[in-house]
């Protein structure tokens, strides 16, 4: 699974950090498989934002593939 997933609207602020989200490196895992991707993260606390389109699209697809593998 590759690579960079950044939503159009990046106007989100992490609370309580008060920091605007920025692209950052994240590790996703499912059923023993790991993927290194770039997602919106809070530069201060590292909180990750999985936006709707990504969850229902690419992530769902990969989950299904891995479940049938």
């Amino acid at each position: 699974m590759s690579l960079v997933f950044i939503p159009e609207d990046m106007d989100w602020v992490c609370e309580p950090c008060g920091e605007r989200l920025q692209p950052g490196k994240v590790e996703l895992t499912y059923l023993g498989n790991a993927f290194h991707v770039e997602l919106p993260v809070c530069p201060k606390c590292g909180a990750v934002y999985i936006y709707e389109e990504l969850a229902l699209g690419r992530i769902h697809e990969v989950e299904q593939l891995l479940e049938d593998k």
Partner: protein
Amino acid sequence: MDQKELREWEAKCIQEEPPACRAGCPLNVDARAFVLSMARGDLDAARAVLEKSMPLAAVTARLCEAPCEVYCIRKDLGGAIAVGGLERLCIRETSPKGKIPRLPARPRKVAVIGSGPSSLTVAFDLARKGHPISVYHLGEKPGGWLRGLDESILPQSVLDAELQRLGSLHVTFVAVPALDAALIEAHPADAVYVGQDDTIAPDLLDLLTPPDPETMALERPGWFTGGLAGREFRFISAVSQGREAAVSIDRFLQNASLTSSRVPLRDGRTDLFTQTFGIEPVERVVPSGQGGFTRDEAVREAGRCIDCQCLECVKHCVYLAEHGGYPKSYARRVFNNSAIVQGMRQANTFINSCSMCGQCETLCPNDFSMADMCLDARREMVNLNRMPPSAHWFALEEMRSAKDAQAALIRHAPGASASDAIFFPGCQLAGIRPEQTLRLYDRLLEIEPRTGIWLDCCAAPAHWAGRQEEFVAILSEMEKIWSGMGRPMVVTACSTCLKMFREHLPAFGAVSVWTLLSESGVQASSTGRPLALSDPCTSRHDAQTRDAVRSLLARLGQPLAELPMSGELTECCGFGGLMDNANPALARKVAQARVAQSEADFLTYCAMCREQLSRTGKPVLHILDLLFPETARPAQEPPAGISARRVNRRRLKDELLARHGLDRGPKEPWEDVRLVVSGEVAAMLEERRILEDDVRRVLFAASKGGRVLRHAGDGRIIAASRLGEVTFWVEYREGEDGYEILKAWSHRMRITGGDL
């Protein structure tokens, strides 16, 4: 599934058995495929079918006596398809399909004495296999009695052309003055065939003992014969004997056994079942002219073909039809899925989509049970840790929630210290119709005051999901609980619970509440308009309950509309076997197909059927709407939905406990988080299988100092929590009346180091 099990499953499905016509053809011509091609007007394809199995098709098709017609299933419905007539028209109207392929040349020679149809068949079949053949014939040209036929039956030019094609296969024709003993003795061949459908000299005939009827072998090794006198059909029987002799000669030349694993002639025997009920008789098309069918007449005649297939199960099952095959091919799919070592298991969803309703087994002449096959496969997947975690997740969560402290309850009747009976409404009735569940319980208390109540789930989801270990553990726990109540008779309002208990907890002596009610009278009234009564699939083998329901309805004076697939043949609503979990789109289709079977409003006595069928928009009543009119819900009411079912179960427990002056104890801290959910968002949550309870838990965590994202422009807020195996995200605004939910989504993939 192992090889042996695959064979056993395959053997049960007869769909690949030949149709009667093909089984009745001594040459194994696929007459069904031929006739269907003719019916489509595709004469070239039809000819290709003939050439695939016939020797010298241009001759054979003209002279074939069509023994297949004797076996045709159309025979008593207007007359057998005129296959012979169709063959002749087809062969007249088309041309041969290029060169006949020949296998690499072989060294050992074959002599064929005589040139009648049986001899030409031997030459054709063996020449194609690469054997060099010499055909000894009388007269100027080979063909024997075929040379004496009228031009209208077999034009000599056609015979000449076919013999020329034989020549191209390295068949040598040798004219001799007599087909006699001297000829055979002089010939240096490795094998000899004597075609008795030609003029054989008496001295040679004297040498021929009667051949083995299966192999056409004579006593003397390497000698074979055919075209014997006394055959049923002068032409096609000779060709058939020639073909059997050719099979033997080929085996003889390769020093192989003449008999081992040889496929015997079927003489019309087949296990293919063809349902003829409902097929209208159509008279045979009579050729208008002397020369047989015209092309148009032939297409019309072929159009009478029934296209014999079994497909009894597939015809009635959306799931079986959806996947484009039939049980035998599905068995191979399941086997391949289990045999895969690396790569995608393409049949996982297929295996998990069966509703396990048992209709196929009832319809199948051999009792093929997709339910059993899929359940075995699911158990294997679970045991090998190959079951997709999301396949049955939602239903299993619902089951566990119905069994948890917030929803489950077991109590004697208020004021009673023991129970003679215990009412087990089933988790879905409790979730979908809580008020009616209470009303029904009150009625049971009138009939038998010592009736306890047991809110729980029968564990059918664990069973359907193939989670045998979990299922057995739950059953044994339930048996303990029930023993603790003094082993009362279990009365259930759910056909699935009833089936589960009868099959897996027989000590319960479970009975249907409808049976009980039908024995004790009701005061209610009918809707007046006829309703289509849809039996739940789990009542398929429970005639007692089905009859009790009908007798209740008869006493109400409730008229019923006809619904053909009822009783033993009833259909699933799409929930059974957890189809709705593994394949929601298919479950919708199944429900749609079901409600389309009657114009009338539906009536059912299964809460889940009410829920699933009403999702199509069809008006559906539950029998309780008729039995207790003061609690009736309109037939048009939409389904309760996944979120309300959870809340309803808690409320029902609260109400029952209140009758004892008790309460549920500490509530979940998130239980009273107030949500504002529009219809649109509710539909989104339902479709995405996100519970309002899940949303409440996410928001509760956020309100307790959890991290959130706030939109810098418009102030929308996003919160997320990992709840079990799933991470839920909620987008919302804070309002006066509670949280206004805008969206929610989820995923199973984990973020290393946590989500928000």
